[in-house]
């Protein structure tokens, strides 16, 4: 009963070292992608009141849509609600850098633009912010990928990136 040391088989020792190295490599890869390449996930932006966010004249989401803030740079205010996004269509020239500000006036949604890194949970009371540069012309559908009620499957829109 006096034993306090852990008996570990030599093969298992090697496996443990391999496992730890593997996990360090994975963590490092994610850290490099996040901090060196700047592929980041959203952080708190601002709070809004979902009961008034779509109607308060001071709220940008009372008039959702695209604003050009500098040449080639845009802000897109998107209002998610059951079961549509407003606006449903956005047009920008290729090479545009667009920052999306998305909020919901009712239940939770997800705002996901296909073939981009934009995929963000839309939580009433919060503003989801992510930025993307559209490098290729084409049509990019954006869809709701959080269950938001019986009409969920029809909730989508598109971004048209013109040449």
């Amino acid at each position, binding site marked *: 009963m006096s034993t306090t040391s852990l008996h*570990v088989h030599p093969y298992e020792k090697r496996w443990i070292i391999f496992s730890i190295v593997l996990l360090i490599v994975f963590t490092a890869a994610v850290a490099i*992608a996040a901090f060196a390449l700047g592929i980041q996930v959203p952080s708190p932006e601002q709070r809004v009141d979902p009961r008034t966010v779509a109607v308060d004249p001071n709220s940008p989401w009372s008039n959702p849509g695209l604003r050009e803030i500098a040449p080639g740079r845009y802000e897109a205010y998107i209002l998610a609600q059951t079961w549509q996004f407003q606006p449903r269509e956005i047009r920008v020239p290729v090479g545009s850098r667009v920052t999306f500000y998305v909020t919901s006036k009712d239940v939770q949604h997800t705002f996901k633009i296909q073939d981009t890194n934009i995929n963000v949970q839309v939580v009433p009371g919060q503003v989801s912010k992510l930025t993307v540069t559209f490098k290729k012309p084409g049509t990019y559908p954006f869809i709701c990928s959080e269950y938001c009620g019986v009409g969920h499957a*029809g909730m989508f829109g598109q971004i048209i990136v013109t040449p």
Partner: protein
Amino acid sequence: MTAQTYSLSPKEKSFVSWHLLVAMVALALGTLFGPLQAFEHAGLNLYPFLQPLIKSYYQGLTLHGVLNALVWTTFFITGFLTFNVIYGLKRPLRYPTLNQVGFWLMIVGLVMAAIPILLNKASVLYTFYPPMKAHWAYYVGLTLVVVGSWVEGYGFYFTYAAWRKENPGERTPFIAFASVLTMVLWQIATLGVAVEMLTMLIPWSLGLIETVDPQLARTYFWFTGHPLVYFWLLPAYISWYAMLPKQVGGKMFSDSLARLAFWLFLLLSVPLGFHHQYVDPGVPAGWKFVHAVLTFSVFFPSLLTAFTVIASLEYGARKNGGTGLFRWVLALPWRDPSVAAQLLAGLLFFFGGIGGLANAAYNVNLELHNTTFVPGHFHLTVATGVTLTFMGVSYWLVPYLTGKKLWKPDLARWQAWLWFIGMIIFSNAMHVLGILGAPRRTPLGDAPYVPAEWNSRLLQVGIGGGILFISAILYFAVMIGTAFSKVKVEKEVEVPVAEALQPVSQTPAWLDRWAPWVYAALALIVIAYGPQLYEQIRNISLTSPGFRVW
């Protein structure tokens, strides 16, 4: 080593059997809806034919998720853990009435939650994200199921304490140790959802408060949501570590490392819930990264498990004449349906683990969040690694409990292989569709934005779902056949509990001491969750009224 002669009393057997019965009825009903979803994806929507019984795809999906992921698991697990505590400690429950009260609370909760779901008043899925608002009975019912399982857990603790008094200085037998630990993990983990229910959802659904904070609710939910998967998984690990080796004629490769793995799960499985909230707007990226690193660290005990379990299997296979670097696998008793089911479950679980790493990889999650990759992943883990293992366990446990011979073991073996094949087809297609951008929880046959290139994969989802359905039917046929069989077992089924290669007395004492590990686990939770919980509660914005959107 002494022979395993301990036996459960008829009353104890019946108590465990009731858990399994409720679990299997839930699985049978929940599994009915799986193929309906899969067929819908493939273009064959059968939901209109279920009117007016089942109103929508989402009511079916809620039934599928709640019955399979919450009810089947929780009831099977509390039953299996009860068996392990009694059989492992070789003593009866200290206060059997307490455990019975817990079980009945779970039943009352289950019925309460089931009624609003069946009446389409709670089609909010098993994640019930507010401000979607279900009928209050749904929230109260689910809470009672959890509270009931806690009460059963208290019964385990009293029993374990009594055993400790009777056996001072002895190492806790592994299956009992691991089962009590699983319950401790569950009781810590469910604090999150308990707070969500008691401070927000229940008073809100009863009309006592008008509004809730959906972001804070998500944080509470995922405090519970990830360790929940370890609550599902650890009972399967108990079987893989301690029972499967015996079933293949081997021994447990290392009792010490098995215990170490379980302690690490207790330590690490709670403080990492933000990896389910990587794309949430209300959680700072820095904390998400901290949880990403912690998520990778909880992969370590699973890697330990992979080594120890495979080494135990190899030891058994070589004793049976297996040779070669990999050829020994063929010397495993594949004809035993319980063994086949668990080996196939473990194999697919390995791929589930790899997909889990992708989900957990912080910014990679921007590609995968809420896509079909996620259900593709957890159908390899909870729906195969766990569920197919539990099915395998039931192939010896049900004969043990009922005293009836397993009905048609050949069918049982077919069941395991069909689950394996169906799941490969289904899950592979779901993973690929997810990478292509297909949203989860969506009737894709109905969605206007689905490109033609998804169609072949959507068809595979339907085919895989169909094969899984056949497998499920075989499972229930074997279970019902066994229960109503007239063929009794000649002598009581031997409970497969493997000896360790090294005698258990050589397991270091620090691997059998609870306080330091439990305190360390709680401390880590305070560090990883404390600051953000404080921040989110301090800035609570109760601005969301409820919506019924189905």
